[in-house]
């Protein structure tokens, strides 16, 4: 089943080239919508059959492959990856849905889309370190082309920057994987939780740091983030939706799966620094967003800020915070996809994303009132308004981290406050005010353009009101990561930890 999710898109991606020229981009889009729906349907089936009470891997597939290298083709999905898998299926559908019907080189475009989808699915379900790495690299190539060919005016610069950053990220991850397997004399590259614990602490820290640099580039975390705003600004709307919604999650997923999972001991060692880095990243992203003049850049910087919360949650490593991290991944995936989608519509209708130019788009007669209302909803979700999914995730993260890293948590809460500041600046500039004459004749927004936005907005509210719907998927699995963390630490024995929690003093000293 999981193989099908990888190989169906791969096969179709290869076959698309054979589609004759006379089929238009519009036709191809419809066909791809069907394909994406089928793929999404498959993930829904997997989710449906998934047993949330079982913390282990399900739908496991195991084949020998490159035995000499110790690499095996082993797939599986658990509570950590399943929500991301479904998110990926859904957002691919959304991305194809919001692709322009008059696209240049549509065959190549859709084949890259599907390749990207296959790469992301593969990375989420891979149970072998090298297999993960291969899919991680595979996803990079189509994304590079998607930005470099269908992007904005500076697309070459952005795409190359993206490629180089992510390639370095891949190399760092690979180095860390090779290091841990070789140094521990593990028989194969298959994913084994707690694998690194047998190494000397210093070695572990070095390997983990290498891995973290790789993941921090992908997430992205300050100071490895500058590729993201450029990539977003140049990427077309569907690519931005996928980039923010799913691809960044590869990094945070790696953080939970490999960072916490492989090196629990070293993780505890450097977690305080990570928490501080997370707070810096969250505040930095938020402050940088305030001064942006491009709507997309603003949303991109807000992504950096929101990813900081996930790093904070991972650093705290309590059960609640890890669950919060998972929830934040999904919430951010949906919210940023929604915002990029809507910003894309604004840019398409008005021809600009410049905050100094746009005005008064909320005008009910000649403006874009529906898009405006949805964006208001989206930014409110992003700034953590209760009743929507973002709040649940952030509240769980903050609540889970507060006792461990109070200062950093409070800094991140300030970050959510700043979210409201920059997004309100955007709403005030773009949607309030008087509609200038140059926007007098905006093309009408078709219903199918806003349909995905309505669906996402609906999901945000439903999940915001009924968080159990998505939390139940991950609860059992997340609970197993944490004990792994707690049991294997020599630094604090469990009674000490218990006492520390009861007396409500910080468990680990924070570096600041």
């Amino acid at each position: 089943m999981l193989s099908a999710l990888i190989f169906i898109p791969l096969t179709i991606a290869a076959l698309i080239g054979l589609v004759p020229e006379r089929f238009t981009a519009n036709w191809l889009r419809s066909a791809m919508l069907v394909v994406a729906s089928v793929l999404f349907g498959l993930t829904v089936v997997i989710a449906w059959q998934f047993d949330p009470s079982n913390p282990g891997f399900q739908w496991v597939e195991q084949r020998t492959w490159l035995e000499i290298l110790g690499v095996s083709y082993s797939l599986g999905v658990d509570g950590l990856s399943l929500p991301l898998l479904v998110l990926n299926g859904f957002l691919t559908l959304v991305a194809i849905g919001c692709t322009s019907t008059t696209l240049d080189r549509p065959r190549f475009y859709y084949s890259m889309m599907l390749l990207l989808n296959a790469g992301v699915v593969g990375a989420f379900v891979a149970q072998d370190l090298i297999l993960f790495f291969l899919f991680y690299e595979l996803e990079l190539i189509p994304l590079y082309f998607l930005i470099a060919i269908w992007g904005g005016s500076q697309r070459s610069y952005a795409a190359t920057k993206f490629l180089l950053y992510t390639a370095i990220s891949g190399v760092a991850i690979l180095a860390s994987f090779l290091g841990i397997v070789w140094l521990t004399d593990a028989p194969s590259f298959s994913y084994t939780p707690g694998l690194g614990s047998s190494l000397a602490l210093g070695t572990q820290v070095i390997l983990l740091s290498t891995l973290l640099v790789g993941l921090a580039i992908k997430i992205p975390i300050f100071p490895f983030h500058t590729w993201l705003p450029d990539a977003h600004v140049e990427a077309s709307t569907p690519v931005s939706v996928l980039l923010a919604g799913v691809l960044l999650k590869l990094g945070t997923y790696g953080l939970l799966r490999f960072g916490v999972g492989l090196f629990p001991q070293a993780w505890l060692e450097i977690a305080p620094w990570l928490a501080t880095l997370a707070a810096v990243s969250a505040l930095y992203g938020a402050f940088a967003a305030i001064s942006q003049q491009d709507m997309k850049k603003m949303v991109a910087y807000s992504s950096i800020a929101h990813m900081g919360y996930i790093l904070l949650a991972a650093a705290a490593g309590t059960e609640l915070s890890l669950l919060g991290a998972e929830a934040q991944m999904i919430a951010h995936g949906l919210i940023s996809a929604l915002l990029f989608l809507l910003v894309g519509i604004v840019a398409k209708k008005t021809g600009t994303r410049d905050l100094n130019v746009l005005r008064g788009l909320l005008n009910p007669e000649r403006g874009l009132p529906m898009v405006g209302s949805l964006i208001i909803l989206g930014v409110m979700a992003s700034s953590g308004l209760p009743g929507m999914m973002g709040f649940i995730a952030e509240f769980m993260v903050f609540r889970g981290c507060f006792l461990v890293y109070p200062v950093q948590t409070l800094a991140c809460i300030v970050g959510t406050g700043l979210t409201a500041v920059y997004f309100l600046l955007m709403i005030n500039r773009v949607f309030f005010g008087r509609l200038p004459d140059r926007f007098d004749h905006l093309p009408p927004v078709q219903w199918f353009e806003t349909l995905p936005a309505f669906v996402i907005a609906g999901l945000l509210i439903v999940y915001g009101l009924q968080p159990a719907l998505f939390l139940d998927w991950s609860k059992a699995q997340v609970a197993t990561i944490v004990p792994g963390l707690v049991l294997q630490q020599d630094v604090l024995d469990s009674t000490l930890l218990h006492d520390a929690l009861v007396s409500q003093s910080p468990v680990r000293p924070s570096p600041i």
Partner: protein
Amino acid sequence: MADIFLQTCWFVPFYGALGALLTLPWSSGLLRPIGQRPAAYINILMTLFSLIHGGIASAAIAGHDRYQIVVPWFQAADLDVSLAIEVSSVSLGGATLVALLCFLAQIFGLGYLEKEVSLARFYGLMGLFEAALGGIALSDSLLLSYGLLEMLTLSTYLLVGFWYAQPLVVTAARDAFLTKRVGDIILLMGIVALSSYGTGLTFSELEAWAATSPVPDGVATLLGLSLIAGPIGKCAQFPLHLWLDEAMEGPNPASILRNSVVVAAGAYVLIRLQPVFTLSPVASDTLILIGTITAIGASLMTLAQIDIKRTLSHSTSAFMGLVFVAVGLGQVDIALLLLFAHAIAKALIFMSIGGIILNTNTQNITELGGLGSRMPVTALAFLVGGAGSTCLLPSGVFLTFRHWLEEFPQMSIAGVAVLVIVNLVTALSLTRLFRLVFLGEPQMKTRRAPEVNWLMAVPMLTMTILTILVPVALYRWDLLALSHETSPATHSTMMLQVVPPLLLLSGLVGVGIGLILPLLRTGARSMNPAIRFCQDLLAYDFYVERIYKVTVVWAVMSLSRLSVLFDRYVVDGLVNATGLATLFSGQALRYSSSGQSQFYVLTILVGTGLLVFLAATLPF
């Protein structure tokens, strides 16, 4: 029969939300041909349902004890969140009062926004407003109240920004949201901390938790201060008070609610949190200090304003300051009574000036005058509302103040002084307003002002009657009964015999000064530099806004610019310096064609392949 209404009382706030949902077809333009009015009617009907439901339920609760309805919400790891609703005469009474005021304000709105094209959007937002307010009245959980306060923040933003094409409205909406948000974020910190320290988040659990004095003093102080911050923002208290007067740029029917029940919602949450403040004397003292500063400062500000709505909004802040003082002293019952008496009187005043603004098209009091003979009903409403919100006659506010002294005879001289000063200045400022607006010569804009239309007159008269009935209601519902036997100490008899007459006297003195004060229209700004300085100081709200501009706003903006510069020159600069410069700068990149792109990909693939190959061949 009534019991059914009581059991389903949790549904009272949902009528408003339902009304808001039902306006969507109109506000989204789907039902353009049949006009926007039906959306308004649906909302008014929904509010009426809510009023009837709430009214019957409040009557039915009289025989019952208060109880809680707890709904488990979600559970994750050690976090178990339940939402709770309190069913008691106070909570149901609050919800009914909200429904009543919303109902009247919405009918008033039909007249006020007669020609508005986006009527459906307005009523949708009012429905949201109503739902959030009713929810806060019923809520028995801090987290639920927080969520509803945020919903209130959002709907305030959208209602203040209703006429978003005007520049002042845009900044007003932004400031309203951000100021409240500052308070809310600090409140959220408090909630996160409280929850982390192991207490459940319903108010009763908090009370039980606070009784065990579980945290060290320093933590308790920080907790208390963070919990105060939310209500400070909501109730427009110093230093988060500026939004309320700016928010007066919004449509008047929303201002009616904002100055009566919305500010009260913040204070209501504060009242529910009072047990936590007992943990820390600093928190209680802060409440009293902030309340006093705001009460006196905002009262003084009313004297120099020339915008009719802003004048009154400052007096709302001042009154909320007294509520803060009451909560700080631990007098929660008094605080509730103050909210009740104030809400009704203030709503009436705002209806009255709504009529003036609509019929004269101005909010500037120097352009008004002589309206008394032209708009007698409105003038009467203003008089009754003004009398109801000061201690001039045995009004609701006076009775509440007197009851406060009975309940709390050990109140210090300073406390009495605050009451007297606030009362005097409020009376003075209302008299000044009355003279400028209703007396004197008609001005250009008032000469042809007609009396308000019936859609506004009916709610106005209803409110007038209600305001007059407030003292009766206070006795009838036995709200002024002493909660405990006070010992007849000399101090208390002195308090009771001297202070109430003093309060009445201060009201009269205020009116007297207001009547003899020279009022000029064109020359309102004095030529005397000293007086002029004081006038400007008060008119510009003690320049607090400018102070914010050069401190908080400046700091945030500088940090923001700094991080952008850092991003561009340091982070990217370092990246470029570390050997990638050749790729990012200069000709290579600018002319990179698809051929070159493929070259990069090839490089990556070869590199990866090489690494895998090395991995395979190197001895393990």
